[in-house]
């Protein structure tokens, strides 16, 4: 990638508009392409299903990443088992690519007894110790210095597995002090971290150009001494290539990389949002034409790896698996109400023991909306 002189101002791409891959880029293995395609398809179907369930009143909330699937999926494909992930709102699915079960994933959205978090968080705030994924904070940004801190610990401990820590944020979060401190510490201590900003052009209703006067998000990395690159976030091959390079740099002891992934939030911010109030359908339509799944499919068709028949079979298989997971989760009970007090501390202090007794003695709470 030596041809990109100002990688933080340019746009790194691999996929051409005609579905071919640029010849001057490292080839992405076919197995990765097919796995990526499958995971992106699955994620799109999961998001659609979860939004449907929310509309039906079966789950409370959901934040989809439709149109941005290439970023989390490429991340999941690049990372190894010892690496750590600190996602923001639209990267929950990295854990699925890394082996977290779909049933447990869906159970978090329901917040019931199948949820490893025991129903403690809103949907789309997943975490899972089995896949080294920590939950993000709705407060926007705190996970980024935490990702840097984990990377710092990896370096201080001289972890023989040479893990990396990857932290995510959106374009709006680059206005937060936590972004500044994360980049300051990452650059200074040369930690094995990759910080990825999904610039999806919108922080709920505020467009990126009202968020910062900076020419790009990536160029902000220069001042912190963190090599930075701006990537086509709707190009799975580009994301895979850049993240492979960034994680390898980190593993080799060369320090952090900051990645701006240029993408677009096709859907609403969340199920609580109505984007028609602040942006034009023309803008959305223009980005639909750059859909990351369509672009990858075009490439795979170009390579003769995918056709209508294989797509239909894949879609049927994935849909069945998602429906089966939802069915299984819906059969699970809610968490016992005693668990409200667990995990505040390692052991219940006297005040929580008293309050637990108070709850035990109180009548059953009314249901939402009752």
């Amino acid at each position, binding site marked *: 990638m030596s041809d990109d002189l100002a990688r933080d101002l340019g746009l790194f791409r691999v996929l051409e508009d005609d579905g071919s891959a640029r010849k001057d880029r490292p080839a992405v293995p076919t197995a990765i392409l097919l796995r990526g395609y499958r995971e992106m398809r699955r994620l799109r179907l999961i998001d659609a299903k979860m939004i449907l369930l929310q509309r039906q009143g079966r789950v409370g909330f959901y934040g989809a990443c439709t149109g941005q699937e290439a970023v989390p999926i490429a991340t999941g494909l690049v990372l190894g088992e010892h690496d750590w992930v600190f996602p923001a709102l639209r990267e929950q699915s990295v854990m699925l690519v890394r082996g977290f079960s779909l049933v447990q994933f869906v159970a978090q959205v329901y917040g019931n007894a199948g949820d490893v*978090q025991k129903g403690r968080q809103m949907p789309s705030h997943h975490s899972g110790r089995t896949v080294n994924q*920590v939950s993000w*904070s709705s407060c926007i940004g705190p996970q980024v*210095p935490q990702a840097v*801190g984990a990377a710092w*610990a990896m370096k201080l401990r001289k972890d023989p597995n040479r893990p990396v820590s990857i932290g995510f944020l959106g374009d709006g979060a680059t206005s937060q002090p*936590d972004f500044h401190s994360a980049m300051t510490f990452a650059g200074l201590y040369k930690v094995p971290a990759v910080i990825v900003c999904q610039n999806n052009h919108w922080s709920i209703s505020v467009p990126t150009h009202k968020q910062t006067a900076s020419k790009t998000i990536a160029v902000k990395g220069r001042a912190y001494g963190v090599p930075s690159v701006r990537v086509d976030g709707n190009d799975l091959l580009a994301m895979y290539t850049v993240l492979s390079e960034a994680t390898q740099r980190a593993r080799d002891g060369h320090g952090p990389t900051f990645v701006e992934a240029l993408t677009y939030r096709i859907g609403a911010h969340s199920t609580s949002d109505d984007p028609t109030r602040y942006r034009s359908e023309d803008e959305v339509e223009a980005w639909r034409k750059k859909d990351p799944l369509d672009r990858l499919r075009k490439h795979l068709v170009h390579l003769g790896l995918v056709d209508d028949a294989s797509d239909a079979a894949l879609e049927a298989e994935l849909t069945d698996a998602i429906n089966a997971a939802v069915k299984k989760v819906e059969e699970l009970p809610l968490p016992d109400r005693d668990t409200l007090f667990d995990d505040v501390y390692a052991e219940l202090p006297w005040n929580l023991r008293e309050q637990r007794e108070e709850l035990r003695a109180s009548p059953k709470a009314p249901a939402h909306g009752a």
Partner: protein
Amino acid sequence: MAQMNLVAAINDALRLAMKADDRVVVMGEDVGKVGGVFRVTQGLYDEFGEDRVIDTPLSEGGILGTAIGMALYGLLPVPEIQFADFIFPGYDQIVSELAKLRYRSGGEYPAKMVIRTPVGGGIRGGLYHSQSPESLFIHVAGLKVVCPSNPYDAKGLLLASLRDPDPVLFFEPKRIYRAARGEVPEGDYTVPLSKAKVVREAQGSKAVTVVAWGAMLYEAIAAAEEAEKQGVSCEIVDLRTLWPLDIDTVVESVKKTGRVVVVHEAPRTCGLGGEIVALVNEKAFLHLEAPPCRVTGFDTPFPYTLEMDYLPLAHRILPAVVATANY
């Protein structure tokens, strides 16, 4: 046993912990080469090196945010916030993250650390070097809050805080950093968290329980000595752990004396004193001979020139104790 002041006792505890456990990392502004602005970490940089005693950038949010990441990964960070007044740029990391991590992950991701920070006034520090923000942390579920009053407790409580599975805010009363001296055993020992200490027992029928901690403990003792001359006996409870507090010791004492005065430097409204009074009312109402009383800082910003008028020193505690005894 060696005579130590509070600074030396805390330094001793940190050194012992770092020797015993290579996961312990001290980090903060000026904690390395210079040994901290109060010299609490003096000598640790030379002994343990720059990877374990880290002079960080001037960024409380960055210190606490990265410390959380370290803790999640398995280190045991001991971040120092140079003054408790400076903690607020990192407040979100403590309140929204550190305090909630165990809970929000269903117990999968506890983040253990001990945040050390000097608190309190009386050092001509003005409003940014004097505050006592304990109640702002006690109000947040998931944190433990400790404040020692003497070198023996400081060392034992800090070692206990490091071994406790939950995140601890360790508030060091800076006014008595060097003034509080006492015997401190060599080597390892702990003072258990959530155990208050009765440092002076009441005698006779005209008795008052005084609950205090940190630097104000000595003001309570001074007031108690004067009160004694007026025929009022004080039972003084050094809270030591502010949360979860040792409610049994407080209530037991109030049941014995029938009266309680709570002393703290922080502003009165929504201060810990209010919570203690509410708990006493709930748990010992029928034993009370007088309304519970608070002697505290005022509901103002911490003043500079008039700080000795602001602080709940012995001259303000004494009339409150006598009035409560004679109610």
